[in-house]
């Protein structure tokens, strides 16, 4: 894939040193040291309130750390300049009014507004990119539909297409399967693996320990601090999970050799900072 941005291949996609984040006096993240190489596929695991969303928000530049340094492609996330388009971010969209009068293709086009710049209207090339992004995530047929007419899984794809429309090098997803059924989750994971195979760096916040461990190459376990990180088969031990989730985690080995399956006591009331 041609890279008009000229990002050096050897610089890490994300590098965090001694990062601490306090929000309204509360410590949300502490002592975070993390290096995400370009081309890797990371899962970010942790219980509710562990700071997973905050960590993503630091990487995309929505929050500045209280202490420590963050670099995205070697630059501070708030000073990326034209490299900003190299980041694609798929937030949890519960802060968005899902009845907002807007068509699918217009939501996806919003991803290009930063590239377009103030005052300029989208041209044919921009609409071409929107069509490609919708095609990529498999919802080209929904382009003219109002956003509110879509299912949870379809909406998730709209926001993924919006993140992909600038052809990013680093894709960050915050619990992309939270509002999605099992079949839709599986096809979303397939899509992410495909993007990864094509060279994209993917960082995904997830609760799906068992599923995620099957296809990511690295895992970071977060509970305000980084409890552990590295290859999933090394990191995902009973001790790590116990430290991360406290005593809430129950660990099942269905059969020898199979991926361990973990159940966390349900705690659906996700708290966001």
């Amino acid at each position, binding site marked *: 894939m041609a890279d008009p941005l000229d990002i050096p291949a050897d610089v890490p996609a994300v590098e965090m040193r001694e990062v601490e984040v306090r929000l*309204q006096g509360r410590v949300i993240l502490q002592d975070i040291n993390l290096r995400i190489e370009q081309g890797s596929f990371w899962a970010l695991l942790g219980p509710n309130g562990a700071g997973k969303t905050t960590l993503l928000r630091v990487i*995309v*530049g*929505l929050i500045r750390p209280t202490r420590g340094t963050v670099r995205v492609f070697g630059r501070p996330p708030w000073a990326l300049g034209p490299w*900003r*388009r190299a*980041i694609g*971010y798929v*937030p949890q*969209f519960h*802060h*968005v*009014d899902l*009845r*907002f*009068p*807007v*068509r699918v293709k*217009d*939501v996806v086009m*919003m*991803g*290009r*507004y*930063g*590239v*377009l710049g*103030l*005052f300029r*209207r*989208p041209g044919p090339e921009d609409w071409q990119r929107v069509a490609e992004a919708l095609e990529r995530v498999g919802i080209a047929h929904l382009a003219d539909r*109002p956003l*509110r007419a879509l299912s949870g899984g379809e909406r998730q794809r709209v926001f993924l297409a*919006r993140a992909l429309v600038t052809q990013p090098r680093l894709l960050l997803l915050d619990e992309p399967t939270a509002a999605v059924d099992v079949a839709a989750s599986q096809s979303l994971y397939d899509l992410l693996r495909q993007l990864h195979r094509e060279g994209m760096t993917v960082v995904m916040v997830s609760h799906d320990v068992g599923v995620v461990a099957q296809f990511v190459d690295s895992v970071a376990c977060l509970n305000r601090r980084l409890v552990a990180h590295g290859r999933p088969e090394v990191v995902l031990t009973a001790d790590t999970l116990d430290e991360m989730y406290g005593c809430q985690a129950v660990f099942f080995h269905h059969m020898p050799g199979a991926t361990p399956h973990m159940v966390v006591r349900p705690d659906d009331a996700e708290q966001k900072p």
Partner: protein
Amino acid sequence: MNWWEYAFMQRALVGGVMVGVLTAVIGVFVVLRGMSFMGTGIAHASFGGVALGLLVGIDPVLAALAFCLAVAWGIGAVTRRGALKEDTAIGIFFAATMALGALLMGLRQGYNVDLFAYLFGSVLAISTGDLYWILGVGALVLLTVYLLYKEFVFIAFDPEGARVAGLPEPALYYLLLTLIAVTVVVALKVVGIVLVSALLVTPAAAAYRLSETVGEMIAWAVALSVTSVVVGLLLAYGLNTASGATIVLTATAFFGLTLLWGRKD
């Protein structure tokens, strides 16, 4: 003599229609961004300004503009710093400026007939000079919305996404607050301090239920707002009722109809 032959009715209609267009367009962004209470707060802030203007003899409209801008930016700054929730900040600023206005009016001698006109509007007392002021300022506001249309839609839909995409979201937010404040002040003469937020919110809220895109919503809001102004003015003339109140109740009637026939979600 027929109603259309009176110069005051002609000025009322022209002024009312211009204000109706302006409040409808800005109101769409107010409703989409969930800032209806913000509109009310900014509108009431103008009371302190009008009272100060009447007391010390400066143009009450200019004094109101200063107050509205100060309160709009103040609420924005306090909220964005995370010190207070937005509705709490609005509640505090709004009550404080109303109290200040009441205190200043108490210092003024005599009967406050002018103040009553500002509180409830005096569309039938619009001067030709007022029309030029509405036209000039209104054109400036609409031009700004035209130029930054896609940005305002994005920050109304998903302010965080806008920041991630690289838009100067804080600056756009403060610009939107500024446009709301200016619109409120321009609309004061027509519907008054108490009712101006209704012109911002009601037509846009009705339009929300009828539209699939923001462009459609603006078209519906403008159509409903202008119709409400014209029908309301004629009803007020015919029934000899207060013009601002009649306009607002007409708009509310249209909103009621969209509850019956608009989309159901």
